[in-house]
């Protein structure tokens, strides 16, 4: 019990880190393990931890272990900044990861840039700096991508809708979510849709019904939400409680597959870049087995994002050789191609100018009455 209390205090104060090993690749991550959006980020970090443990158990990379140091920032910019400073100056990480809200980016980027250490956004939304022409020190493995995601979602709505579309938008009150919904609202008229209100919902909210009421009153027959899952799903459920009969499309976060099964609503669509476990791919079985063996806290279908980050980090460190320096890792990441074995529609491919991927693939799923079903198979956009 005493050790549990000590661990709880350590986690709550953001001091959760394994012992340092000198003769290892030291990688640090600041992540929203607690706080409002933690359910989107914590499973990815857990998956990354399991992946790295597996790599270490198999002998490490280039014969060296990877020491992954995890710091909780509760999705707060000030804590993320403190974490980044600590990881860079005390732990001397050669690679820094951010798995938290977009509001943490500015201070973390500033710290990483100042230290000359490459920064990977893993499970958190990709910032514009990773798209061509990319900032030399910033990279992103995350499935979701601003502007591309809205284009994909709206294209699907246009293709699916059988009547004129009046579309409302639901965002969380964080910069990227709001920005994305504003982008989507501007794109919608060009696709022949009537763009209605954007509801910007603070995290967290005791009752989502007032926001849903406004969307319903505006006359929306479609609603698009691109926000942390909690905002997306609670807005949807509040709309349904108001007897709203329209269609809802949301971003396919880690929780999406389990939530589609829970909600069982055939007019709730999720658009995303990761294959859901309903596909039963060999690598998905591998993830599920590893999660079970490691006693993972989260369902395997929530582990894809962290697993992909692990695959990419492994490839980057392998390419950098030993001894690794931040500069060598950055150079390795600027020429990287990782086969994701079906977890996405295509590989993660980074070049000097593109630290996102050259093609972004999407799929759309929904509940079909008996199971989670594919509604639209991979379709892609060139990233230029």
């Amino acid at each position, binding site marked *: 019990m005493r050790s*549990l209390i000590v*661990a709880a205090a350590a986690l709550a104060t953001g001091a959760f880190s394994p012992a340092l090993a000198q003769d290892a690749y030291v990688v640090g991550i600041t992540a929203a393990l607690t706080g409002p959006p*933690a359910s989107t980020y914590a499973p990815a970090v857990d998956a990354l931890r399991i992946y790295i443990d597996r790599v270490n158990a198999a002998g490490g990379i280039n014969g060296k272990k990877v020491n992954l140091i995890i710091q909780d920032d509760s999705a707060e910019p000030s804590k993320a900044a403190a974490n980044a400073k600590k990881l860079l100056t005390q732990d001397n990480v050669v690679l820094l990861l951010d798995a938290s809200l977009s509001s943490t980016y500015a201070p973390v980027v500033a710290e990483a840039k100042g230290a000359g250490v490459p920064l990977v956004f893993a499970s958190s939304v990709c910032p514009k700096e990773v798209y061509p022409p990319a900032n030399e020190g910033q990279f992103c493995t995350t499935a979701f991508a601003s502007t591309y995601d809205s284009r994909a979602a709206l294209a699907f709505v246009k293709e699916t809708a059988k009547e004129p579309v009046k579309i409302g938008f639901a965002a969380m009150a964080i910069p990227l979510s709001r920005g994305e919904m504003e982008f989507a609202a501007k794109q919608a008229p060009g696709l022949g849709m009537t763009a209605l209100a954007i509801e910007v919902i*603070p995290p967290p909210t005791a009752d989502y019904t*007032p926001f849903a009421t406004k969307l319903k009153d505006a006359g929306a027959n479609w609603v698009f939400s691109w926000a942390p899952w909690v905002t997306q799903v609670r807005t949807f459920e509040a709309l349904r*409680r108001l007897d709203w009969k329209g269609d809802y499309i949301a971003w396919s976060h880690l*929780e999406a597959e389990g939530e589609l099964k829970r909600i069982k609503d055939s007019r709730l669509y999720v658009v995303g870049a990761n294959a859901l476990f309903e596909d039963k791919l060999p690598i998905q079985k591998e993830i599920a087995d590893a999660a079970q063996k490691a006693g993972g806290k989260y369902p395997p279908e929530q582990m894809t994002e962290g697993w992909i980050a692990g695959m990419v980090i492994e490839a980057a460190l392998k390419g950098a050789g030993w001894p690794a320096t931040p500069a060598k890792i950055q150079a390795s990441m600027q020429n990287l191609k990782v086969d994701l074995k079906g977890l996405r529609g295509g590989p993660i491919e980074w070049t000097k100018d593109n630290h996102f991927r050259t093609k972004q693939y999407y799929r759309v799923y929904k509940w079909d009455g008996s199971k989670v079903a594919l509604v639209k198979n991979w379709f892609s956009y060139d990233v230029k």
Partner: protein
Amino acid sequence: MQLAVNIVVLSAIYALIACGYVLIYRVSRVLNLAHGELMMLGAYLLLATAASFAGNPVAAIAAAVVLSLAVGILVYVFLMRKMTGEMVLAAVLTTVALGTLLRGLMVLIWSAQQQYPGQALGFANPAIALPGGGRISTFAAILVVTTALVYGGLFVFLRFGRWGVRMRAAGQNPLLAAQRGINLHAVYALAWGLSTLTGSMAGMLIALDSGLTSSMTVIGLKAFPAALVGGLDSLVGALVGALIIGAAEVLSIQYIDPLLSDVVPFLVLIAMLIVRPWGLFGTREELDRV
């Protein structure tokens, strides 16, 4: 009509949470800044009892309620009791530390994943159509009724109950109360127990209505302005404060800007602090003590 329903539901949520702040402050002059965490703990306890009493939701809820009451009493016995006689600020800071510890513990035990106690208990949450075209979910309706019952029960208890009168006496003049033979530690423990119980009931009902995440603590904090606006030592004040804050929030969402909903409670609070710092139903004397 829907607007009125939304105001009532949000106000009921804030009122049920806020009465916990008032109960402890009124009796011991301590601001319990771990109230949000204790509220969330109540919801997680329901999740735990739902698993333990699979197929028996009544037993699960009853067990969670009893456990919540026990947690509040234990917090006083093992932690806050040691703060007796110390500066109030020290006690308040202790509650901050308690909140931090509880947050970490809950993530370690139950993870940050979204949880659905209602699903675990086998409850559905259908919407109820109201006259006038409004709709309310079943658990939101239960929350409104529960809030009314809790406030009604507390008024009766504090006015006519033996222990209620003792609680009032201890709050008004602890020295005199002690000299009259009132066991202050028992009174304080009861206040902590009742406060945690009401907060936990709010947490359980919110979780049954819309799910449970580790962010629920922030909702507890959002109810704090309701207690302050009404007056920290007044249950009537907490009720009226919750109604004002709930209405301001819902109306700002509907007519001004949804983004303002996060700010409006604190704007109302600042306005109240300027005009009447002791709150609508609080007393000047309380302000001096703060």
